Every structure is written in structure tokens, then in C-alpha cells.
């Protein structure tokens, strides 16, 4: 690879590292975004799914005749005549019998599961007709609690004989009895919903004789592969467009059954069809995240040396195991967090329940690991009577230990954990905070202060490559083509900055193209915070390849040897070294070229990168009502070299809010019959601006050696640190009342009840 971007002496005028405003926003704020719901599709039919209102039951018959007779109705299908085989389990990891029918076949397994689909001329006709579809469902006992699921008294898939989708067992569990201090606790990492502003939406039809699809997905090529595999057609027989999408948060990383069915219906009917789900369908029928029951066991000396840690997990997969069943594996890899602990072991079991399926959600498995270890460290600190900041400091690996292999075998690329902890402690005036906390405790104040610390590390990028193509157009402008899919986080700006920097052209000269599987040969999912580090590095690499081609072309024009030419990035021109007057600009090279010069990336990132940071939350808990107010969030995040600090800060802001949300507010709940209790945004308290403080945040930059940008991912980190910090802060505020742990979400009622139980 070529030299480090931004290195002194290479370019003194680099745009990298500057807070460049999002180029996306001009069109978005004018309402000119290209969302699937806005794509003009002449004569498109509308799709409405009929969903189960029972959590668990056997299907007798489904009556669709009334619906078929309704005005405007074109077709109604059930599993019997849809013509699709069941969707196989993910990668063959789970019992094959846990395959998911596209429309429930014989049995329903969660409220919201599609049982029939109606296609009609208008959205309203489709909705009216769907109301008349009647399913005879014989109720079966719901399977809700994870222990109940594990007991297997009631089975979702009787042919399997149990409710276990996936598990990891430790052969020879180690004995904790010999340690000086051992603390255990049961922890629930609550089930949450992604709540993208734009719910699921998809359209498909025959365009120019080709099956074409407009999707709101985190990866155009992944979407195409999922659909074509399941429909049994060749990849090239489907063209997928992904333009603007209104948020994904991981939930749009897996192509849903409904989306596959919409493409199938377009083929089957030979018509253009579109489906837009409602918020209630989104909250009950789309995937949820987290949903883990954990047991932590932590052991060490009485002077603060953590020696052993064990994490047991029960993962709720919901009704059909997909990515959710695999989440605890990510939790396992990151179980020991930032700490250097000699012995760590992890067991987990993923079980199916009669609830909405669980999948990836911002952080996917890593926030669960962080929440568990950070609670465990706090419990251990409380047990030995040591300050939680000090216990953390004593157990962090030294910066000289990197690359650092943690006790579960994960190799952390680079880290300066003590540096970020110290920076956060200093920025928060930790000593002053503890003094104020003590003052309030002594005074018996009914506004108790809590301080929560989280030092986190997470996995991003996961290695691999991304399609990157940078070409010089005849008019001297630059076209950059990526296989990645921007999901609203400003990548069009970031990538253009990287290309402009490499070439020495103005940002305005660079156009980024993405999201058309006909034009872009391959692409990966936007997920795991990979799209700056990997897609961005491939953009830089493709631009470097273009520089090489352009240098050859300029050498021909200047009748000089290519090796004698240098690129003056300040002027955007090649010249003979030492003779700046003899030069050829990008525009001149473009106009002389017989065909566009095209640089193609061959960058591959060898492995995952590990961003880290320290978050300190300061909360005030009203001991009379149980209401928590987040007074301060001090966040020091290190995601390697930052390409655009404004956009990176935006990612942290959103992540912090989502972390506070899970800690204090949000939880998907079901009643004892398995009915969703949080199926709209009045009952599911998605966080608002009214609950978040003004953040105090900063970046440190510890480069990764794994890509030329030196960048790690920042998309998920905010939600990973803040969740644990806020939870710990609330528990800390309640410590004088003898409370050592409370599960999320820390609602006023939960806190008040705990205070009541403590006798406060």
C-alpha cells in the first residue's frame, strides 16, 4: 500500500480530518431524497400482509374468498398457493426444521407473523380486503420466558424435540471456589427495537424486460443475493436499486421474508408491486435486538486484581432463529471487554420463543458483552470497596501489549485504554463529582447523584474488501463507484473527501455512485461499522491506481518518464520533479485520453479493528419518583484516524442517545399471552431530545495498522459505551440504599420499586 494519508509532507492542504458538511443534506432537506416510497411507479399494485394475532397456534383453515371478491383485489395468497419453499436456516448453523415459511404454514409462532398476502389496485383496497381474511387458529401455549423455552415443555418446532437453536458449551468449567473474592449477578439485556424513521418498504416490477427491485436495505448486493437465492433465479436476472434509506441500525441488514415475497409477487403477477409497512408492523413484524439473559461470575483478589470471569447467556431468538441466535458468539469474543483477565469462559444457549425474531441491532452482540463485563467490574469493585475507576485502571492491558490477545482469543489491533479512561476522568472532574455525590449522600438529598464509568472496546470492519472504482471522466470530473451502501451516515461526503484528497481535486469534482447492482459489480453489507475503514480505504486505493494511470498518461503528454513526474495535489496537476511549469492538469489529461482512465481497488483488510473509549455518565435520580435525569455524558472515543470529525461526532451523538434509550426507556414487551405491548411509538418510548443532555465528547486517535487510513469504525461505539455507563450511574446513585444491581430499562417505576423494596 501507499503512504499514510494525511502524513506531513505528502499534502499540506488535505481535506481529511476537517469537519466538512454533509453533501447529502441539500437534497434531503429540500425533500428531494430518493426513497422507495417516492419512486414513481406507474400502475403499481399494493401489497398488504395479513398477520397472526395469536402468539402460538395451529392453523386450521384460512378463508380468503371474501377478500378475493373485494373491489380492486388482484390476488390473495396463503402458504398453500404462494409457491415458495420455506426459508432455510442461516448458514446451516441451526436445526434445519427451524426453517421459516414465508407465510405461516400449519402453525403461527408470533403475533405479527404473516399468514396471507393481499395484492390490490390501491393501498386502501388492499388494507380493506386484508381485514376480511379469516384464519382459524387453534391456540397453543405461548413460549415466552427463556428458562421455559429451555425446559422445552412446549415446543415451537415439535420435530426438533427442543427449543434450542444454537449453543456453545464449555467442556470443563473451571472452579471459582479458590478465589479470594467471587461475585455473581443475573443481568437482563433488554429487548429493543431499531425504530428506523423509515420502516420497511420495497417495490418490484418488470422494467425494460428485467425484474427490477427498489429496496431500503443496508446492502444492494446482499439483498439481491438473498432474493435470487430464495427465488431460485440467477443473480443477474434481478436488478436492485438502493438509493436513500431512512435508517437501518442493523435491522435492515437482513432481507426480510416480506421483502422477498414482494419480489416474488412481481414475478408471479408480472406487475409492479409495492409494499410499505406501518409503524405497528415494523414494531411487531420486523426484527428486534439484544434480548439476552446473562449471568456473570467475576473473581479476583481483595486488592483489585481481576483473575477470572465467566459469562453464561440465554439468547432469545424469537420465533425463528436468524442472526439473533448467533449474537452471543460476538458477545463471547468480546466477553472480557478491555480487561486483561487470565481466565475467561463463556457458555451460551440460543432458544426460540413465540415472539418477534431477534436480529442484529447497533452493536449486535458487543453492547451485550460490554454491559455484562462493566456491571461485573462494578459489582466486584463494590465488593472489595475500591473505586470503580481504580479497579478498571488496574486491569487494563498496557499500550505496549498491543496487538493484544484477550482471554477468548480475540486479537485487538491497537489500543490506549488507560489514556481514554484518564481523559474521561479528567474531563468529567471525577474527583469533584465524587465529592458532590458524597455531599448529597450525607445530606440525604432526594436528588441523589450517580456516576457510571464504562471503558469499552468493540469489533468493527471484520476484514475483507469492498468494490472501489475511481475514474477520470472526459470533462475532468471524477466518478467514484462503491459497492457499499450509505445508510444515512454521510458516507457520500466521507468517500468524496478521501478521493478528492488522493487526487488533489476539489470535493465538488467528485461524484459518488452506488446502489445499482447492474452498474456496480459487487458489494458488501453496510454493517459492523465497516464503510469508512474498508469502503473508504478501497476508495483511496482505487484513487491511487487512477493516479498511477494518469501519471503514465501525463508522462506521454510531457514526453517524460513516469517516474520523474510528481502529483502536485495543491494544483491538481502532474509535473516533472523540479520543473513545476511543465505540467498537465487532471482536466488536460482527461481531454487527451482516448477513453476514461479507471482505477480499481484491490485493497483487502486483513482483519477486524477494535475501536475503544471511555464514557462517564452523571445522572440525578429523584428518590421520590424514581425519575432519572442524565445530567452529563463525557465521552472519549478512539476510532483510529478520523476522516471527518463532524460526521464521526454525529455517529457518536446518535449512539449515545440510543444507549441512554436502552438504559432508561426503551423495552419491547409482551404480555403473558405473547401479545406485543409496545406496538406503537406512544407505548414504545423511543428516546427524544428531551431526555438527552448536551454531550461533552472528544476523540483520541490511535491508528489501526490494518488499513491505510488508520481508521476504525465509529458507527456503533456510542451506543456500546453509554448504555453501560448510564446503567452503572443509576445503580451508583442507589448504592446508599443497598441496591447493587438493577436491570434495564431503569424506568422511574422500576427504581421506585427497588427503593421501596430496600426500605428507603
Amino acid at each position, binding site marked *: 500500500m501507499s503512504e499514510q494519508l494525511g502524513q506531513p509532507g505528502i499534502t499540506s492542504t488535505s481535506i481529511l480530518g476537517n469537519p466538512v458538511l454533509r453533501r447529502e443534506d441539500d437534497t434531503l432537506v429540500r425533500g428531494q431524497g430518493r426513497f422507495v416510497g417516492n419512486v414513481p411507479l406507474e400502475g403499481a399494485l399494493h401489497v398488504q400482509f395479513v398477520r397472526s394475532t395469536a402468539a402460538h397456534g395451529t392453523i386450521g383453515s384460512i378463508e380468503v374468498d371474501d377478500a378475493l371478491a373485494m373491489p380492486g383485489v388482484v390476488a390473495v395468497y396463503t402458504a398453500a398457493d404462494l409457491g415458495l419453499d420455506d426459508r432455510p436456516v442461516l448458514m446451516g448453523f441451526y436445526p434445519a426444521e427451524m426453517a421459516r415459511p414465508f407465510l405461516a404454514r400449519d402453525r403461527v409462532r408470533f403475533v405479527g407473523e404473516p399468514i396471507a398476502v393481499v395484492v390490490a389496485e390501491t393501498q386502501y383496497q388492499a388494507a380493506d380486503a386484508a*381485514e376480511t381474511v379469516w384464519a382459524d387458529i387453534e391456540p397453543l401455549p405461548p413460549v415466552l420466558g427463556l428458562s421455559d423455552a429451555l425446559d422445552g415443555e412446549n415446543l415451537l418446532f415439535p420435530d426438533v424435540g427442543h427449543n434450542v437453536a444454537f449453543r456453545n458449551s464449555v467442556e470443563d468449567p473451571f472452579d471459582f471456589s479458590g478465589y479470594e473474592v467471587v461475585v455473581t449477578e443475573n443481568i437482563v439485556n433488554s429487548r429493543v427495537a431499531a425504530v428506523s424513521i423509515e420502516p420497511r418498504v420495497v417495490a418490484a416490477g418488470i422494467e425494460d424486460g428485467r425484474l427490477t427491485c427498489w429496496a431500503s436495505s443496508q446492502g444492494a448486493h446482499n439483498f439481491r443475493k438473498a432474493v435470487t437465492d430464495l427465488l431460485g433465479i440467477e443473480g443477474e436476472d434481478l436488478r436492485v436499486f438502493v438509493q436513500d434509506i431512512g435508517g437501518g441500525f442493523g435491522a435492515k441488514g437482513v432481507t426480510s421474508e416480506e421483502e422477498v415475497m414482494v419480489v416474488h409477487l412481481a414475478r408471479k403477477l408480472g406487475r409492479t408491486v409495492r409494499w410499505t409497512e406501518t409503524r405497528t408492523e415494523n414494531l411487531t413484524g420486523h426484527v428486534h435486538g439484544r434480548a439476552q439473559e446473562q449471568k456473570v461470575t467475576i473473581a479476583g483478589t481483595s486488592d483489585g486484581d481481576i483473575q477470572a470471569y465467566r459469562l453464561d447467556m440465554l439468547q432469545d431468538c424469537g420465533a425463528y432463529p436468524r442472526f439473533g441466535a448467533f449474537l452471543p458468539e460476538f458477545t463471547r469474543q468480546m466477553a472480557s471487554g478491555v480487561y486483561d483477565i487470565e481466565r475467561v469462559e463463556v457458555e451460551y444457549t440460543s432458544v426460540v420463543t413465540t415472539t418477534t425474531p431477534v436480529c442484529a441491532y447497533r452493536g449486535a452482540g458487543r453492547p451485550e458483552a460490554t454491559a455484562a463485563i462493566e456491571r461485573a467490574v462494578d459489582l466486584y469493585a463494590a465488593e472489595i470497596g475500591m473505586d470503580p475507576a481504580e479497579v478498571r485502571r488496574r486491569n487494563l492491558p498496557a499500550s505496549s501489549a498491543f496487538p493484544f490477545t484477550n482471554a477468548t482469543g480475540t486479537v485487538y489491533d491497537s489500543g490506549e485504554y488507560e489514556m481514554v479512561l484518564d481523559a474521561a476522568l479528567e474531563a468529567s472532574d471525577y474527583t469533584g463529582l465524587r465529592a458532590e455525590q458524597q455531599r448529597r449522600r450525607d445530606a440525604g438529598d432526594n436528588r441523589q447523584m450517580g456516576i457510571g464509568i464504562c471503558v469499552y472496546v468493540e469489533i468493527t470492519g471484520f476484514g475483507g474488501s469492498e468494490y472501489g472504482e475511481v475514474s477520470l471522466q472526459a470533462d475532468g470530473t471524477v466518478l467514484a463507484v462503491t459497492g457499499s451502501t450509505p445508510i444515512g451516515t454521510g458516507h457520500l461526503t466521507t468517500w468524496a473527501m478521501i478521493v478528492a484528497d488522493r487526487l488533489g481535486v476539489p470535493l465538488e469534482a467528485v461524484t459518488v455512485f452506488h446502489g445499482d447492482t447492474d452498474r456496480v459489480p459487487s458489494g458488501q453489507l453496510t454493517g459492523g461499522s465497516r464503510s469508512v475503514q474498508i469502503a473508504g480505504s478501497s476508495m483511496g486505493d482505487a484513487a491511487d491506481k487512477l493516479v498511477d494511470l494518469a501519471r503514465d498518461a501525463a508522462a506521454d503528454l510531457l514526453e517524460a518518464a513516469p517516474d520523474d513526474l510528481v502529483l502536485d495535489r495543491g494544483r491538481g496537476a502532474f509535473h516533472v520533479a523540479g520543473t513545476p511549469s511543465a505540467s498537465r492538469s487532471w482536466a488536460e489529461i482527461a481531454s487527451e485520453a482516448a477513453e476514461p482512465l479507471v482505477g480499481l481497488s484491490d485493497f483487502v483488510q486483513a482483519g477486524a479493528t477494535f475501536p475503544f473509549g471511555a464514557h462517564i455518565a452523571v445522572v440525578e435520580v429523584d428518590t*421520590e*419518583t*424514581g*425519575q432519572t435525569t442524565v445530567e452529563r455524558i463525557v465521552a472519549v472515543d478512539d476510532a483510529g484516524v478520523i476522516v471527518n470529525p463532524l460526521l464521526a461526532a454525529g455517529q457518536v451523538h446518535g449512539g449515545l442517545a440510543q444507549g441512554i434509550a436502552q438504559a432508561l*426507556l426503551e423495552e419491547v*414487551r409482551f*404480555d403473558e399471552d405473547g401479545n406485543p*405491548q409496545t406496538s406503537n*411509538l*406512544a*407505548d414504545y*418510548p423511543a*428516546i*427524544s*431530545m*428531551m*431526555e438527552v443532555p448536551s454531550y461533552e465528547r472528544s476523540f483520541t486517535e490511535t491508528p489501526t495498522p490494518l488499513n491505510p487510513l488508520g481508521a476504525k469504525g465509529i458507527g456503533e461505539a456510542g451506543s456500546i459505551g453509554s448504555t453501560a455507563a448510564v446503567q452503572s450511574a443509576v445503580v451508583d446513585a442507589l448504592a446508599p440504599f443497598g441496591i447493587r444491581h438493577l436491570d434495564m430499562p431503569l*424506568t*422511574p*417505576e422500576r427504581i*421506585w*420499586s427497588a427503593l421501596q423494596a430496600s426500605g428507603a
Partner: protein
Amino acid sequence: MEAMSVTFARTVDDACAALAEHPGALLLAGGTDLMVGVNRGQVRFADVVVLDRVDELRGWRREGDEIVLGAGLTYAEMGRGELPALVPALAQASRTVGSPQIRNAGTLGGNVATSSPAGDTLPVLAALDATIDLRSAQGARRLAIGEFVTGVKQNALEPGELIEAVRVPVLDGPQEFLKVGTRNAMVISVVSLALVVDRSGRNVRVGLGSVSPVPLRPADAEAHIAGCIDWDTGSAPDAAAVHRFAALVAGAARPIDDHRGTAAYRSHAVGVLARRALLRAFPGGAS
């Protein structure tokens, strides 16, 4: 399917005539409650009378010591202009409702007619002893708010009748509205409380929301605290009196468990709100 009729009334008489013709018609003003029910399929109807073009129902006016609030007064309108100085608790309550879009559309008459235990204006109207002006083709009648709301989403509105206005007094004394929800904005209340002080009447009046089927007045608490205040000096009641007041308010609540909160928490929280509202109205009191 049978066609539905939609009448866009321009005057109260128009609306009453349309209602006389279709006594089962739904009245549509802001639609912020109604359309939720319609969209969920919980509200079925054949006829609609639309009220948002009736100028007589809009705005408010002062009649002596009374404010006459048009049924079409929006939450946004309750919170701006001179009204907040005249009926502070109503303005405070209106500002806790929904989002700006909802506050621009939702109306006082709609909130009263929906008669939900969680209706944000209802505790205020209860505390103020508001009266409701009803009209139909047969004539007009006036009911106290306590007579009007008869149960959970049930009221004394007869077929063919509409709410024309809500009358509240202008009182001499501070007013407070406090609400507990599942977040700080855009929420349905878990409990709410309005407290108004009437210095000339020498009483403190309290309305409770979301703790009983109808807006509740804790009579024992009101009687107790009125007797603990030195009305000549207006000095704050002592700590014991305040605690007793809070306990009586909590004891008067008759809440239920539901998915937003438990009865135990609601009773407790409404007591805390009572104490805080009283201390805001009488600053300097011992907590």
C-alpha cells in the same frame, strides 16, 4: 359498501342540523384521538360532521370573571397569547400534549369529548370547576365537568349534541400542572395533577388524572390544606400539613395496573406531585 356522508359545518347551527339528521354521526375536529381509533378499526361510523371550519367554536373570550373557551380551541392556542396568564394550569397542560403538530390540530372540545382518564386538560378543568356548554337542535344545556365525564371514555353527550364551549373561572392565585409519563415529551400520562389556588374563595383545588375512571377531586385533601393556610398572610403551610395533604391526595387516587404503570406507583407518584405542586404554589414551605 354503503356510502358515508361527510358534512362540513360552517356554523354551530349547521352542525346541529347535520347531527339531527344523523344522530349517530361522528364529530371530527382535530382528529388526533378519533383517527387513531379509525385507523385501528376500533371506531366504525357511517357519517361524519366536520367541525374545524366552524368559526364560532374557535378562539376564546372573557365574560366577566369567566373565560369562555371555544370547543375548537387548539392546544397550541391554549399555550400562547394572554390565556396562559389567565388560566396558567391549562396552558401548562396543553404544552405537555403530543408534538407541535398534534398541538396544532388537537382541540379542547375533542379532549373533553374523548373523556379519557389520561386526557391532559381534564384534571385542570376538574380543579377549576369548569362547566361544559352543550348544544343540539333542541337547544342548549350546561353541565359541570364532573357531571359530564361519567366513565372511561364515557360522557353525558346525547345523540345529536355537541360541545360548544368550556367555561372556566379566572382565579386569584397560582396554578400548577404536573405530569408523569414514560418519557419527557410526546407521551400519554401515567399520572397527572392540576392544582389551583383561589385566594378569594380561600381554597386550594386539585384535579387528578390517570388515577381513576373520571377526573378526580380529592375533597379531603382540599379541605385539609385550606384549613392549614393563613389566607390573610398567604404564608406557606408547614411540613406536617404538606405531608398530610400529599398523603390524602395519594389516598384518594383509585388507579389500576396497566402496561404504562402499576397502581402502587401511580398512587405514590400522585402524592409526590401534590406536594411539589403545593410547594410551588406556596414557595418557602418546608418539604
